[in-house]
């Protein structure tokens, strides 16, 4: 393959020209992976994630990805990613639903190892009854793994947020894994116009010398190096080191906020913030909410919306500020748990005004009409409207 033209993430994300293409979410994601100049990809099939793995195989066959193989299962794919990322190369993988849960042990380790792996997850049902349909329940399991989590609304977000994920994951002061989460089929298989950057411009290669921990390659110092050693008392040390390590991982995630502002224009997108009612949503629920607020406004309801792009680090201060003057906050979600409502309730003063719902899950569609209907009922309940 001929010499690649490489560019900075700042240029690619913020300045590069864009071309419109009619793509499904998985194709948009593959275009991002191609531009991200990825070294090692390990994959495993699961619906609805498999297509991106196929597309990565094509990218490898065409020379855009340097190493690629199908692993034995998600637990070990994610362990292989740990190996590859520890060596100090740029990595990519993806999974879905039961795969996410199978991989929970390595997922709980990635952040502590300070590995800048980018891993999209195409959310689907987990547990029994079995279900391959879109669902955002998996984020609930991932919230406290120390990883950064973005929630994708559309194929366009999938392209943008994947590149933003690499830019932010690899900052020396952050250097953490990023989960780019979408609600399964709603994004992966929906075809829309996506604006993408030129396909002959690639991100600069990853430089492991900027890592906050030494690369595991017997080139970086110190040669006497136990990467991610057991920091426990049988090595004659205080538990304080273990605690301090854990704090540092969360601190690194907090440092990402500055980069999120720069590369993503902040963790939130706000429409009509002065309205008396706000719908707060993430992922495809935000897409449905956009349509719902227009419908509700036509019916004379003073409503705005907040799309929460970044779930971790959670934009607590920003949400608390927005919630101050609002009379009612409604949180529609594509899952049974209502984890986003819980997150919002935890950071908002007077949180009795935060209502979870509609909660639609197991692949059921959430028509905007349903959101409007539930909003009207809530307004009555909150006596804001007769």
């Amino acid at each position, binding site marked *: 393959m001929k010499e690649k033209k490489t560019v900075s993430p700042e240029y690619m994300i913020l300045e590069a020209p864009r071309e419109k293409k009619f793509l499904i979410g998985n194709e948009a994601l593959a275009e991002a992976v191609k531009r991200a100049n990825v*070294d*090692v990809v*390990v994959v495993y099939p699961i619906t609805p994630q498999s297509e991106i793995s196929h597309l990565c195989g094509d990218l490898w066959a065409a020379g855009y990805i*340097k*190493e690629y*193989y199908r*692993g*034995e*299962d998600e*637990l*070990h*794919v994610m*362990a*292989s*990613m*740990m*190996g*590859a*990322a*520890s*060596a*100090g*190369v740029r*990595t990519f993988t993806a999974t879905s639903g039961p795969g996410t849960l199978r991989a929970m*042990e*390595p997922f709980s*380790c990635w952040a502590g190892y300070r590995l800048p792996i980018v891993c999209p997850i195409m959310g689907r049902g987990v547990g029994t009854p079995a279900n391959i349909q879109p669902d955002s329940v998996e984020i609930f399991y991932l919230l406290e793994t120390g990883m950064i989590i973005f929630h994708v609304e559309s194929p366009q977000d999938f392209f943008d947020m994947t590149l933003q994920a690499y830019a932010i994951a690899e900052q020396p002061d952050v250097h953490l894994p990023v989960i780019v989460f979408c609600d399964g089929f709603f994004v992966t298989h929906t075809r829309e116009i996506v604006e993408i950057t030129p396909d002959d411009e690639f991100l600069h290669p990853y430089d*492991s010398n900027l890592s906050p921990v*030494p690369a*595991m*390659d*017997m*080139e*970086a*110092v*110190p*040669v*006497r*190096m*136990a*990467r*991610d*050693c*057991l920091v426990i008392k*049988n*090595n004659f040390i205080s538990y304080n080191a273990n605690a301090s390590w854990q704090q540092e991982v969360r601190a690194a995630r907090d440092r990402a906020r500055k980069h999120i502002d720069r590369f993503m224009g902040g963790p939130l997108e706000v429409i009509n913030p002065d309205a008396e009612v706000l719908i707060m949503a993430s992922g495809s629920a935000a897409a449905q909410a956009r349509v719902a607020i227009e419908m509700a406004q036509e019916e004379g309801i003073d409503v705005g919306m907040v799309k929460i792009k970044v779930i971790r680090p959670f934009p607590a201060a920003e949400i608390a500020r927005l919630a101050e003057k609002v009379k009612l906050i409604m949180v529609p979600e594509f899952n049974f748990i209502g984890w986003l409502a819980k997150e919002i309730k935890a950071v908002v003063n007077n949180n009795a005004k935060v209502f979870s719902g509609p909660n639609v899950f197991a692949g059921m569609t959430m028509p905007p009409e349903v959101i409007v209907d539930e909003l009207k009922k809530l307004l009555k309940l909150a006596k804001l409207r007769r």
Partner: protein
Amino acid sequence: MDAVKIAPGFEKIMPQEYQDLVSDGPYGRNLSVKDLGTFKELIDEHPLCAGCTLTLSFRMVLASLPNPENTLIVTCAGCFGVIHPQISLHCTIAPFGTHNAFASGLKRALKVKFPDKNKDVIAMAGDGGFSDIGLAPTFHSWSRGERFTSIMLDNECYANTGGQDSGMTPEGVALNMSPLGKKFPKIEFAQVAKLAGCAYVATATPTKPRLLGQMIRRAILISREIGPSFIRIATVCQTNYKLSPIDGYNRAKGFESQIFEYFTQEAQEYIEGIEKKSPKTGLNLGVGAENED
């Protein structure tokens, strides 16, 4: 190797052990088990049981590396996992049982990062790590032909967790999860390795150090050039088998009857080629191995 040279001016403030590592370490010197006692070893004082034959094996493995300056070790939960911080190489600990998957990713990434260099990766786990919790990734890394060496430190039980039976515990042994004696036989793991496509499979004991060293070198060189290699080092957990160190050593000695080597034809030709050509590449072999003791 610049990574083990002290920056000018800082030599005198470095603690003695680091100065020793620089002046007398094994990097780039092609040392072997028979040189033990003449150089600063890659393993420091560690927290494992005194007189442990597994630890002795680990020490011999480290002394036998053909290129320690380019060797990386992936461990997982187990006694040797506890001592990985005491090794003067790049080491890590993978989630339990995932060592061979971790090593697959590591080795492939190193090949991408340094296409012109040999980086020897060793996945090291215990009998439980390989035969129970890590069986799937072990088998698959071999069937994919991953180019690294797997070393099983077989002490016939889960020792670090307090003495439970593993797939490699012999039938009838009563341990903490087999109170009435283990009901099924020890797994023929060498057969698994052959079946999965290892180019080199061997069983060693720490009671034959030079032979063990020869096997380690062969395994590493074969995994570099030919295909995956596997060595089981037969030891015993003296603590959980309630043996004195001497009895533990003697039990390991009893395993000498299990010593064997298997090569694919390609691996055999390759090893014969280099051992003939350059006995000094560490493969000062053919001699010594049989004449030990």
